[in-house]
């Protein structure tokens, strides 16, 4: 595995895909980010990020079922690949390591 780094937003989207499992597609991810993080997200930004992550091999996708509310259009369901999972985990561990370096705050 090469030394790929993820941007903040990329990491966020990747995490969301991992979390949402079978329901990970553009509109759902956007909604989740908006409702959980209270952060305004542009739909197209999420899409672009998904495509980029797929290019990097962290995600794979397949076309899922169509629903009426989507005007008969199918969803593209994303799942995290092994290398995506490994990167996510590596990043989390790196974070934890860094957290440990912060001196414990003592409350007097």
């Amino acid at each position, binding site marked *: 595995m090469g030394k790929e780094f993820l941007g903040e937003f990329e990491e966020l989207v990747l995490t969301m895909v991992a979390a949402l499992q079978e329901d990970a597609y553009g*509109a759902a991810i956007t*909604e989740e980010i908006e409702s959980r993080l209270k952060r305004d997200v542009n739909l*197209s930004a999420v*899409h*672009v990020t998904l*495509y980029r992550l797929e290019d990097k091999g962290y995600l794979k996708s397949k076309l899922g079922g169509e629903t009426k509310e989507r005007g008969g259009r199918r969803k593209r369901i994303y799942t995290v690949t092994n290398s995506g999972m490994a990167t996510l985990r590596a990043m989390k561990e790196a974070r934890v390591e860094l957290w440990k370096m912060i001196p414990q705050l003592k409350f007097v």
Partner: protein
Amino acid sequence: MDKPEYPGWVLWVLQRTCPPHLLEEIEGDLLQRFKRDSSKFGTKKARWRFMVYGLSFLRPGILLRNKFSFQLISLSMIINYITIAFRNFNRQRAYTLLNIIGLALGMTASTLIFQYVKYEASFDKFHSRASDIYRIQYNGWQNGQLNFESAVAVPAAPAALKNNFPEVEAFTRFLPIGGVISYDAPGEDPVVFREERMQFADTSLFNVFDFRLLKGNERTCLKGVNKVIIAENVANKYFGSGDPIGKQLTLHRGDASVFEVTGVFANVPENSHIKFDFLVSYEIINAWTENESETSWNWYDFYSFVLLKPGTDVKSLQAKWDAYLAKTRAEEWNKQNRKQEFILRPLTDIHLYSNLLYETSPQDLRDGDAVYAVSVVAVFILLIAWINYINLATARSFKRANEVGVRKVVGAAKGQLIGQFLTESFLLNISAALVALLLVRLLWTPFCELTGWQIPLDYMLAGEFWLMVSMLFVIGALLSGFYPAIVLSSFKPVVVLKGKLIKSSAGNYLRKGLVVFQFAASVFLISGSLIVYDQLEFMKNKDLGIDINDTLVIEGPSVTDSLYASKYKSFKTEVLRIPGVKGITASTSIPGEENYWTTGLQRINGGPEGANVVTTMGMDYDYVPQFNIAIKAGRNFSEAFHDEKSILINEALSKELEFTTPDQAIGEMVRHGRDTVEIVGVLANYHQMSLRAKVIPHAYRLRTASSYFCVKVETNDYKDLIARLEVPWKSFFPGNPIDYFFLDQFFDRQYDRDNRFSEVFTIFTVLAIIIASMGLVGLASFMAIQRTREIGIRKVLGSSVPNVILLLSKGFMQPVAVAILLALPLCWWIMSQWLQSFPYHTEVNPVVFLISGMLVTLIAFISVTSQTLKAAFTKPAETLKYE
């Protein structure tokens, strides 16, 4: 089904831009989101968000994913087009060079000309409300006849217009003056200059115009008498770096008056028709003339401007104004059997279309038709250059027929072939455009110097300039590339690959037609410039009726006093003693300068009713003999008579006063202003102004004038003469700078712009014919190569070299002959019209057409034979040995 509430066009855009494999989910997500949004925020906001989200998919991260479909192919095709184009250029370097040079020259010439036209058309447009500003033109009618059309009007007219018509927002007036200005700094030598660019004006000018005041108060700077505001450069001239505000300037003009500088304005832009360096408060002239300069309906010396409310219908205002004048002025007019017209003329038309009496700087005005005629020349040159490309490209089509055939067999679509040829034309045109840009930059200054056109170099930085250059380039590339591209791409592969010669008679005719156009344009330009030259020579060489040669003019002293008459007499005696001086005469005006002195003149017995307004000049006894003006009847002023109560008139005036012969006028009494005087002589008509103007009725009175001293000289050593003249000048008229010039040069200055116009016309004519013959050279060389084998066979069979040349040249000389036959009558007709616009003009000389016809034939023949000669001399053995 219910109608979609979302803006469908967003999806339409996405369908055309997004990669197909991504489209479905993008649309789906968008729609899903729209549903959610509309329940959350309502339909209106949801629609807005739908649009924003939808359009934000037009981002590189999405669009570039398209490349797998078709962009990649087209990109590589374009690269291939370019490669092929360069191979082609390289294979035929001479031809490519010929094309680039021709196109570049055409673009350079037309760019320069268009910039010039833009400059001339920009006059007075820098005022923010230029299109609402009008100048009042004054037409004077006498006895039902139009007497004069003048650029200056009476001061009461603009005021009456403003006071009676709500459409008029503001008005302003200028009254020109001139004189010597001095600044007497305490403890230093006085700074003295003669200044001509001076006007009386008041602060209303800032309401009408956009002239900028840099220092001082716009509303108060010209309030009160003896205030002056000056231009920046004048401030530097007189005061250096010191602050001019509050300083005192003295105007010497008869009596000296002292002005206080109350403001400094930005230099008047070059493209203003009215130019001034000094504005003196109008209240002075009111004080001097007891308010005549506010109320007079007779004194016409005032440039009057009005600012109309935006959107005013000028025609209906003019009609109302005419009616108003007819009502209120009729009584006055009837007394003198005259009529006054005050016509509103757009400010922006003055520079190109105004040619009235007393224009503020007539030598700077342009003839709009001539300016646009030059742009026609520019278009001609461009067309000629483009035609060259078309002709050469189609002529060469033979050479590329095989290439086209093979390409088609291999599978090239017609569109791709067109793309190939258009690419070539674009590349050629863009190289030409780059060369042209370089040339324009290099030639800008010399071109301005040569033509006397002042085109600000900033124009090159303007967006418009680049837009124009790119337009020239794109139009040129399409226009010249399209036809060849279509011709070439329509070859049928089976036919061309069989080796059949393509003989497209339609193409041939078109090519010949275009050559006809090119040479018709050339013939037209040559004959045109010859006729322009002819007319100029005619004007310059025609006998003026007055001998202005060998005359040195000294501008009269501005600082004078009551002893002037006796001083002048002594000065004259001194001057006549100088060796080389044949005579000296003082007058109020000189040939080449418009006479501003106008007075009413009326016969006591008989003659037309009412007073004619007549230009008058004051002069002494020596004026008529020294200038060698013929006397038709009677005599000159003479010291032997008491000629203070006498008047001389010219033939034109004698006719206007209804004398059947000049002799009849002698001894008749006339009222001239307030005097009753006797006509003692009738002078032959002579040209006071250039031959562009008609000889107008003129009267002459005896005066000891102080405006100009004309010294008739006969010497080669002018330097010495002027040094000798300065001695008595300084002793009799101290404090006056001595300014002098030669009368013939001064007079000929009126033809400056005509000369320049003729030169420019000639330059571009030469350019046009060079480009046209370049095209012919290219065509001829191509044909010669094409027919090498034919020539070989002909020579083997006994053809001689002249025969071959004749054969080859015939095809080219025919269109040239047709061009000449077409162009000459057209040119004859148009140039005759042009000549009619001069009151004194030559006739179109048929020799001109002979010359231009022969010249063009010769040039064409040389271009063609230079190429065919080689082919004709080639030994048949060399061309046929491969058979």
